[in-house]
């Protein structure tokens, strides 16, 4: 029996090593696929080996063991098949909400582990119980919070839920939940019969707080929120790993917890917001000063003329935004780019850190269309090149190229790092209409002398551009 303990323990060690190695591999596009596959093998192995534990359960469990094993296999198959099928079929644009959903599931799983640990009174020291309850709290918040994030990104919940005194209300819910958590620990220690009641109220409170905390946050801030809940789930898993005396859970959970913290802060920084600002400021609702800023005449230009200009330029930088993905025009764009390249134009893509619905999301969407990643440049790598570039083509992006962020201190987006599209010799902006971006801020770039607007749906405009290039030939 002691042998099984060693095998199970060592399998966790091996899995932890493979996870870290895999995560390391994921830090470069060249080794990334190998990285996730490596981590995947580690996971498959440790899950398979964990079934050996069925051979060393305490005697009182033996009569229930067949049912437990059956339930385990059924749950694995059901959860795996459903999530796997959904993950295979979901569209790339819907990726962020899927990540949110899977993340919430992990939080729920950690909370379930905590619930069973509480019911079993395992190693009931105050510390042990305190860690169990803390992990449960974080896991529950991650579960319901992620579900709200999913609903918002999926368009099922269109408006943030806000009411006056909300912050106070949320504060009261949180403190109440904490108090219930403390009561859960105290009653468990006393062995009191009220323990179960307090535990149930505590779990309900924690789940409810996750809803309250996420409901007022605007849809545009969801990437930061998803990343935060990813961190939360990691921490919850790490804490429950301590409760279960399972170092593999502790390591994997904490690695994700710290990596997720870093990612969350990077994302918040790219949006020029602090994390507390994202969570508590209700940004996006109050920016009613939309009509401010420069007014003037926008110049509009025909798609064919714009395409011809680019065809005879020597360098073009393309700045795609989420609008491109909404129009499903990535494929068309790449077709256009390939024709430009064939004509000898130097084409690059410039990606703002918050382009898309999640940092890096735009890269994924372009990759799906077949754009090679070495044509895609981060903001810091390309921003100095705009001044020497003939044409900047902005498609479905707005706030990330708004020069007010550099100059206008009264602008809500002042200080946000932007792509210097305005410095290119000629700027084309493909845009549906004359509206403002999600922040509701007018964009002076559109009124610049060297800017021409190409109004229309990105898909339709790009189709016309492709046709124009075809008619021009490649000589």
């Amino acid at each position, binding site marked *: 029996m002691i042998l099984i303990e060693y095998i199970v323990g060592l399998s966790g060690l091996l899995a932890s090593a493979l996870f870290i190695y895999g995560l390391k591999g994921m830090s470069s596009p060249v080794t990334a696929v190998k990285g996730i596959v490596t981590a995947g093998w580690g996971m498959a192995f440790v899950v398979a080996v964990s079934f050996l534990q069925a051979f060393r359960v305490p005697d009182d469990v033996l009569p229930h063991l067949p049912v437990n094993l059956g339930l385990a296999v059924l749950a694995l198959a*059901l959860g795996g098949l459903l999530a796997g099928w959904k993950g295979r079929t979901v569209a790339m644009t819907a990726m962020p909400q899927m990540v949110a959903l899977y993340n919430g599931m992990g939080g729920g799983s950690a909370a379930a582990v905590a619930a069973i640990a509480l019911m079993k009174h395992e190693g009931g020291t105050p510390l042990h119980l305190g860690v169990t309850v803390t992990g449960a709290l974080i896991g529950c918040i991650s579960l319901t919070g992620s579900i709200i994030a999913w609903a918002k990104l999926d368009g099922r919940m269109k408006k943030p839920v806000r009411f006056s005194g909300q912050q106070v209300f949320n504060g009261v819910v949180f403190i109440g939940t904490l108090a219930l958590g403390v009561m859960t620990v105290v009653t468990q220690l006393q062995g009191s019969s009220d323990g179960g009641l307090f535990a149930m109220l505590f779990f309900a409170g924690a789940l409810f707080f996750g809803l309250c905390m996420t409901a007022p946050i605007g849809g545009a801030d969801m990437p930061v929120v998803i990343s935060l809940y990813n961190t939360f789930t990691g921490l919850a898993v790490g804490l429950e790993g301590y409760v279960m005396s399972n170092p593999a859970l502790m390591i994997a959970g904490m690695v994700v917890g710290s990596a997720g913290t870093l990612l969350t802060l990077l994302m918040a920084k790219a949006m020029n917001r602090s994390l507390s600002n994202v969570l508590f400021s209700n940004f996006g609702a109050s920016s009613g000063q939309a009509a401010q800023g420069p007014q003037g005449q926008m110049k509009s230009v025909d798609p064919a003329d714009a395409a011809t200009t680019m065809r005879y330029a020597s360098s073009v930088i393309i700045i795609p935004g989420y609008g491109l993905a909404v129009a499903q025009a990535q494929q068309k764009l790449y077709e256009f780019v390939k024709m430009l390249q064939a004509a000898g134009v130097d084409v690059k893509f410039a990606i703002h850190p918050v382009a898309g619905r999640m940092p890096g999301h735009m890269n994924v969407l372009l990759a799906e269309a077949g754009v090679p990643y070495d*044509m895609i440049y981060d903001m810091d790598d390309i921003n100095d090149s705009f001044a020497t570039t003939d044409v900047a083509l902005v498609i479905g992006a707005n706030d990330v190229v708004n020069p007010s962020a550099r100059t206008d201190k009264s602008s809500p987006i002042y200080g946000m790092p932007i792509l210097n599209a305005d410095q290119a010799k000629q700027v084309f902006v493909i845009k549906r209409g004359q509206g403002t971006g999600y922040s509701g801020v007018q964009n002076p770039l559109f009124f610049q002398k060297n800017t021409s607007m190409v109004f229309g749906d990105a898909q339709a405009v790009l189709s016309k551009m492709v046709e124009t290039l075809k008619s021009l030939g490649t000589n």
Partner: protein
Amino acid sequence: MLTSMTLIIALYIFMLAAFTGYVVISRVPSILHTPLMSGSNFIHGIVVVGALTALFTATNIVEQIIGFFGVLLGAGNVTGGYVVTDRMLAMFRPSTKKPGQSATDKKTAS
């Protein structure tokens, strides 16, 4: 599985794991942020192992139900996280046929 673990050793593990996570992520280009979030999402799916352990030792119907949902959700986390990450990463490809070079080329260009 360890039968006992002192608080101190647990804190050491947490400390080292936290540094590991920080160091591994800090060099990741933003192009990989989404797959990476999804990949780390997959990794914390190891909670399914904890849920399995809990379910194996269930002795009454309530524990079995909670354990069942714990494993169900954990399995969803693992499989979904893996599939989605793998799909995203499989799409990244370089334009030249020299995979090793492109990443470094990019840094030096302009």
